[in-house]
């Protein structure tokens, strides 16, 4: 009986570790998707400003992205909320990393305060910073996927060994 309980306990630990890994993997995926979404938004806005000199509410209107959509961020923008306010409102739901959060908060609140050239070069700088952060997150995501796979294999192997 105690043997059986030991096996059950080990089995549960293996399952819990597996679920945690999967959860972390999903979080890392969401984080990358959201960072990519905001990066694409900045690129879109940059293009609209550089080419058409559109005010921000109009510049963001035609943008779409699955991750930002599911956050409700784009809906808020479509309802007429300003970029910094909409961002602050959905920040609690975001899976973004600390650095990305800070960068976006600064960028969105300072956006549009200068002339076209100033704004475009400012956005360019922020785009390259965000691209670097995204690249680092993608590496981390890859790592977490590998870790999850390894842990799944190890857990499966452990369970098999336990039952042999």
């Amino acid at each position, binding site marked *: 009986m105690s043997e059986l309980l030991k096996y059950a306990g080990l089995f549960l630990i293996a399952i819990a570790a597996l679920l945690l890994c999967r959860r972390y993997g999903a979080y890392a995926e969401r984080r990358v998707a959201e960072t990519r979404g905001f990066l694409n938004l900045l690129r879109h806005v940059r293009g609209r400003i550089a080419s058409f000199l559109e*005010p921000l509410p109009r510049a963001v209107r035609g943008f779409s992205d699955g991750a930002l959509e599911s956050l409700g961020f784009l809906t808020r923008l479509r309802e007429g909320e300003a970029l910094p306010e909409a961002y602050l409102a959905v920040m609690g739901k975001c899976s973004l990393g600390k650095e990305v959060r800070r960068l976006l908060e600064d960028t969105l609140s300072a956006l549009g305060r200068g002339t076209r050239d100033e704004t475009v070069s400012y956005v360019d700088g922020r785009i390259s910073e965000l691209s670097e952060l995204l690249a680092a997150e993608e590496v981390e995501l890859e790592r977490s996927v590998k870790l999850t796979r390894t842990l799944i294999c190890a857990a499966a192997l452990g369970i098999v060994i336990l039952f042999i």
Partner: protein
Amino acid sequence: MTATKTREGIETVLRILPHRVCEEILALVRTRRGGVSAIREIRIRADARSTLLVGRDRIPLCCVLRRDELETTLHRLSEGSVYAYCDSIRAGYVTVVGGVRVGVCAEARYDGTRASVSGVSSLVFRIPTGECEFAERLYRIWDEVKKLDTGMLVYSPPGVGKTTALRSLAAYIGGGRDPRRVVIVDERCEFISSDYERCEVDILRGYHRDEGVAIAIRTMSPEVLIIDELGEEDAPRLFGTVRCGIPVLASAHAASLSELMARRGLSDMIGGGVFGVFVGIARSGDGYSLTVDGI
């Protein structure tokens, strides 16, 4: 422009204004006839007294705004996108939804001929009045002008209602039983497309007048061309393009015909036959009087 739209324009302005001014204004007009729709002008100043024009009464406001509150208001006016409004702010105004023109009083610094504007000290929100009271009279005059195969210039001092008159006249000319293709060159974005949903009216918004006129003639085949607030500096650039057989309906600042004629650029256009009829608008008692010359 309907009363509903005037109200919408005021409501947009109230959303943009600093909260404490907005509250004071609402408290002041609550007891007045017409409510918020009677507001004609809101003039806010940094570190000085702001005022409100309701009907013809100028009411001083109690709250004194700080300079940073005016800067924030201007930022809101430019939809958080100063880059998109730079030229307009440099020219001294911003136009917001509903055709509300906001005059910007600030400090300019010149680098050659290019001005940089900062340190906003006052903002003047001019709310367009609703329907033009004398639009039908003006349309009857325009009917006569058509027969003379010439253009019509509407003049008055600032704030009397030239733009509102042109807005209504555009709807009359482009609508009704015998609509004409009207193209409006609206450099200051004060004409609203939704006013002309059932009319033959196209609006070139934000274009410089000379460029707008050239585009209108080249691509829109207008039967009537409307240009708001012709300035002396526009006249030489416009002179060549507007003399192409399309009747021009325009407005200009002047208190009298002699004042109008004294402006060299405009007098060249008048002498060149662009305008043959001149309509002066003046306030008279509670209404308006029109002075017609040239018919």
